[in-house]
């Protein structure tokens, strides 16, 4: 007998939907204030003010397509922990549509989508399920916000390692 868990589906550009666990989606902001930060990675080059803090704003599609549109119509705030028991950290993510919640059954696992087979992106994926005929990855938000991903992305973009800060 299969069980189900709730997840949020997030659209981050055409063909770039992904999912996070229900508890990881903290807030949806339909009219965000977005402020660019110069000299930052192309996929994370702005911040938003949120609850007396500034959150980095990730453009998910730009992880895969550096020249993808920079426009964001909606923003989701995601929560993650670096280790169990540690305080929650937060990250904003640009969305092309409002997020929606679904129930995922544990017998729907699919093979890894081809795009995520690349060693840089493979750690992003915690699981995969089928939804509306497409394989949807469940993303590791902590890895998305990690310096490990940043360093890998910048090395891929031909930036020499000594220009990357720890």
């Amino acid at each position, binding site marked *: 007998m299969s069980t189900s868990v709730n997840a949020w589906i997030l659209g981050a550009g055409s063909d770039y939907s992904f999912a996070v666990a229900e508890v990881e989606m903290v807030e949806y902001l339909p009219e965000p204030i977005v402020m660019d930060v*110069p000299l930052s*990675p192309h996929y994370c080059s702005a*911040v938003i003010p949120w609850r*007396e*803090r500034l959150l*980095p704003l990730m453009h998910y599609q730009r992880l895969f397509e550096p020249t993808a549109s920079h426009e964001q119509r909606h923003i989701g705030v995601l929560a993650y922990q670096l280790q169990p028991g540690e305080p929650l950290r937060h990250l904003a993510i640009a969305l092309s549509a409002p997020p929606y919640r679904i129930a995922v059954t544990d017998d729907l696992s699919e093979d890894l989508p081809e795009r995520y087979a690349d060693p840089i992106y493979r750690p992003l994926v915690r699981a995969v399920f089928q939804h509306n005929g497409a394989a949807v990855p469940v993303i590791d938000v902590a890895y998305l916000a990690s310096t490990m991903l940043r360093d890998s992305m*910048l090395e891929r973009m031909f930036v020499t390692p000594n*220009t*990357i800060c720890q």
Partner: protein
Amino acid sequence: MTAIAYANLTIDGQSLLLPQTDVHHIALAGNICPQEGGLGFVEHAGLEWSVHALDRELMPIGSLPESRRLVACITTGEQSLALACDMLTTVRFESESIIDDLPKMMRLFSSPIQSLLYADGALHFVSGAGPLIAYLLSKEA
């Protein structure tokens, strides 16, 4: 309530904040002495302060836009240079302003931005003489 004071260098609408003590002197851009291979220098306290300029993306530029009417002489005590800006003011931000370290996932070694300050609906970039001079000299090399 504690207020934090900065020198606020306006560059093409961007606000770059430095500790007041890092700005040693302010000169008019009209006092820049031409120098081959560079933007020139200003003389102050018996030293020649090499002039640098940034665009809105905080990338170094090789010519001085008309709007850069001032140069701020910046020093760590050991290293010094002058940065052109459109305007320079002293600003004080109340403690309820949001000031956060630049998130690690956004931080590049070459960036002189150390923190972000959000106040009165505007984002300001906080740096210091050390990282700013290191950045400008690294781009010059």
